[in-house]
Structures are given as structure tokens and as C-alpha cells.
């Protein structure tokens, strides 16, 4: 007798790749705009980047319904924080909140692969990278999602992360300038889209880039093949 199999899964994989790079006084958060299921594209125009606070942007890929629920949850928590503390949450504080929120559903996880990017209280760029159940780490750069395995080695090579074993601890924030970092991110996506079917920024799909710096935030859509 064949083993019983479930005919329904509460999860789906809607694809996508997210990247964030921290600089001395800026942070670049980028994600593609494709939403897919199986071999179908549902839409070419879906944003994976969400503003949680003035200086915290969350980019998430994975199961879109869970990602959206997670974003709504964190937005609501931030609103409550603002009412109670009369100020915006700092990026490190939001990072901890995200970790706790993910672990809260440790036994029915949010199928979301997150990268949180922002500026800390001194205006320096910070990036936090997560797994689906809340393990997190402050890093200088990270990528998550279907194209991460293609992009991460490239970033490691270009951004030359110092070993975490060194003492005293070295800062992983990149010395690159903002335009150089943006160019690097575009290059990373250009490469990933060549080989990852779930991450594509061609044929009408786009790359969405959010840049946070001392002047504020700007959101740009770049169609890689046209620039």
C-alpha cells in the first residue's frame, strides 16, 4: 500500500531575489519585481521592498502571502511603537523585532527569506540577514531568495568581507561610494537573471532599488536591459 500523501500544501514559492548593501552613510536595498508560481509568471510588477520605518526597509522573497502578512504585522507593531515612544524604531530595534516575530511562528513558519536594510542611529548603513525562523546577523551585505546562491559569491568577491574571526571585529560596511554600490547591485542582478528563472529583470520585469541616505529615501526602477 502506497504511503499517504497530502494533496494540499499551505505553502507556495513565489520566487524572487533580494539584496542589500551597507555603506558608510547609505544603504542600498534591491529586489526584482517578478512574482511567479511554478513555471507561470503571475505578475511582472510586484514590489518586494517594504518600508517598515523611516530608516528600515525590508526586502523579502519566498511565499508571497506569508511575506505580506509579515510586512503588515511589522508595520502594525511599528505604529504601536510610535504611539508609545513618540519616535521611529531604529533599524537594530526593528531587526530584533523581526527575528522575534519569525521565531514566534517557529512551528508553522513564515516562508519568508528576509534582508533588512537601513541606517543605524549614527547614520551608518546596516544590513541584517535572516532565515525563515528568525536567525539573524548584522552584516555588510547580503542576498536572499532564489538568486542568492548566484549573487552571494559575487558580492563576497567584490566586497571582500573581512573574516568574522578577526579580533578586534572589523566592520563589514563597504567603503564603496553610493553610485558604485548601486552599479554593483545592478551588475549582480544582471548576472543572476541570466541563470535564475525566478529572478528576471528582463522582458518587462524590473529591478527595484531603494537607496537610503542622509538626504532621505529614493526608490528607482531600473530595467537592466535598457540602461
Amino acid at each position, binding site marked *: 500500500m502506497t504511503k499517504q500523501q497530502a*494533496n*494540499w*500544501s*499551505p505553502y507556495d514559492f513565489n520566487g524572487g531575489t533580494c539584496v542589500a548593501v551597507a555603506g558608510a552613510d547609505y544603504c542600498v536595498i534591491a529586489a526584482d519585481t517578478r512574482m511567479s508560481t511554478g513555471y*507561470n*509568471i*503571475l505578475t511582472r*510588477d510586484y514590489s518586494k521592498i517594504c518600508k517598515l520605518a523611516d530608516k528600515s526597509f525590508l526586502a523579502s522573497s519566498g511565499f508571497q*502571502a506569508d511575506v*505580506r502578512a509579515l510586512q503588515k504585522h511589522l508595520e502594525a507593531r511599528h505604529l504601536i511603537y510610535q504611539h508609545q515612544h513618540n519616535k521611529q524604531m531604529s533599524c537594530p530595534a526593528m531587526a530584533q523585532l523581526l527575528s522575534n516575530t519569525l521565531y514566534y511562528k517557529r512551528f508553522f513558519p513564515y516562508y519568508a527569506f528576509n534582508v533588512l536594510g537601513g541606517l543605524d542611529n549614527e547614520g551608518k548603513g546596516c544590513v541584517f540577514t535572516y532565515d525563515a525562523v528568525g536567525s539573524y546577523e548584522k552584516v555588510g551585505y547580503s542576498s536572499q531568495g532564489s538568486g542568492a546562491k548566484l549573487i552571494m559569491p559575487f558580492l563576497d568577491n567584490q566586497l571582500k568581507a573581512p573574516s568574522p574571526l578577526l579580533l578586534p571585529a572589523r566592520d563589514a560596511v563597504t567603503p564603496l561610494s553610493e553610485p558604485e554600490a548601486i552599479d554593483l547591485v545592478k551588475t549582480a542582478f544582471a548576472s543572476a537573471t541570466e541563470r535564475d528563472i525566478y529572478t528576471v529583470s528582463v522582458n518587462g520585469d524590473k529591478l527595484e532599488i531603494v537607496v537610503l541616505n542622509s538626504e532621505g529615501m529614493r526608490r528607482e526602477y531600473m530595467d537592466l536591459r535598457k540602461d
Partner: protein
Amino acid sequence: MGYKFVILRPYCASPLTMVPYVTGTSVIGIKYKDGILIAADMGGSYGSTLRYKSIERLKAIGKHSLLGASGEISDFQELLRYLDELILYDNMWDDGNSLGPKEVHSYLTRVMYNRRNKFNPLWNSVVLGGVKNGQKYLGMVNMIGVHYQDNHVATGFGNHLAVPILRDEWREDLSFEEGIKLLEKCMRVLIYRDRSAVNKLQVVEEWVVQSIAKITEEGVSISPPYSLKTFWEFSAFKNPTAGAAGSW
């Protein structure tokens, strides 16, 4: 494959709800110049039997929204009950405001997602469209809560057969006639190639006529059921067993 076992006991709220019984097939929706157009056939399949041929899968919701559902018909009827209550409470405020398509879509998304969290999904994929204050909206939600908005959406087989046509031929400034022709083109392909499709369809239209940002007319209309012309006189169909002896 082809097994339809219930999900393992400890996680399932109700083992009877994990298998659809009477199902509707694709729904297709597009935005056009003056509003929204949604089309669906009137079939309700019971497995491989085309059991029901007069099921209205397109409904108007409140003043501004249109709902088209595919999947389990009884769950669609349950969704209509949820929405009736939502619209009733909205009307009872009697404050001149009314829920627009964006709000209804958001509500539906939350309902579907919460049912999925309890392992008791409403086995549907729905298209939700509408116009409010001149703003067009078109979205889709499925049974696990995955949702999006776009200029054209489809459920089920429509994703495979209709969306490629829409991606190629949809334009921002489609007139009503062009929009209907485009939808009919997609529905025709579905009739030919989707075994659950029935050649009896309805199209619902929500339109707004604007002149320099002022809305002069707004309305919703559901067409009576009609059929599309199909062509079956291909010579290969005439003698279907002709090549059988020599083929693999």
C-alpha cells in the same frame, strides 16, 4: 499522482474540506479604457463530469466591485455570504462611504489567508475588480492567500492559455469592443483546450465615463449567457483514427 488523500490528521481542521467537489474553471479579467471586464463560463464540473451548465460565477459586490470565482462552488457561495455581511455592515454605517474594490480585495485576501492558516481553506481562486472614483482596480487571490494586482489577471487554466495572449495584446486604451474581442479570443482558446470549460459564458463589465476628472456615469452590467462560435471542421478531426495504426 492522482491521489486525493486528506492531509494528515493532526493538522487538519476538517478532513472533508481538502478535496474540491463541484468546481468552476478559469476566470479572466482585464482593465480597459473605461473600466474593468471580467469573463467566465457557466460550467460546474463534478470531477470529469460537466454536471452543471448554468452556474453564475460572476457577481457584483456592493457598489463598486466585481467578483469572479473559480474552484469549489460551495466555497464560492460561502465567500458570497462573507461578502454579503461585509457589505451589509458597510451600508449600515450610512455615512456616504462605500467599500471600494481595493478594500474588498484586501478583505478577501485576509479571509483566504486566515482560512489557510487554520488548514481549512476556501478552495477558490478569485478575481476581484472594480472602479471607484474613476480609479480602476483588478486583483486576484487564491486559496492560500497569494494575491496581486495587475492590468490583466486569470485563474486556473487561464494562467496558461489566456495570460500569454493578454501579455501580447493588452493595451492601456482598449475600447469596450476591443476588450470584449480580446476576452472572447481567450475564452475560445479555453473552450478548445480546457476540458472543464463549457461554451456558455458571461461577461461582466464595470464602466465609468469621465470628462476631465469628473465622473458622469458609472455602472455595472452582467451580460446574459452567450456562446462563442467554434470551428470543428478541421480535416484531421474528420477521421481521427486515420493515423492510429501506424503511430506509436
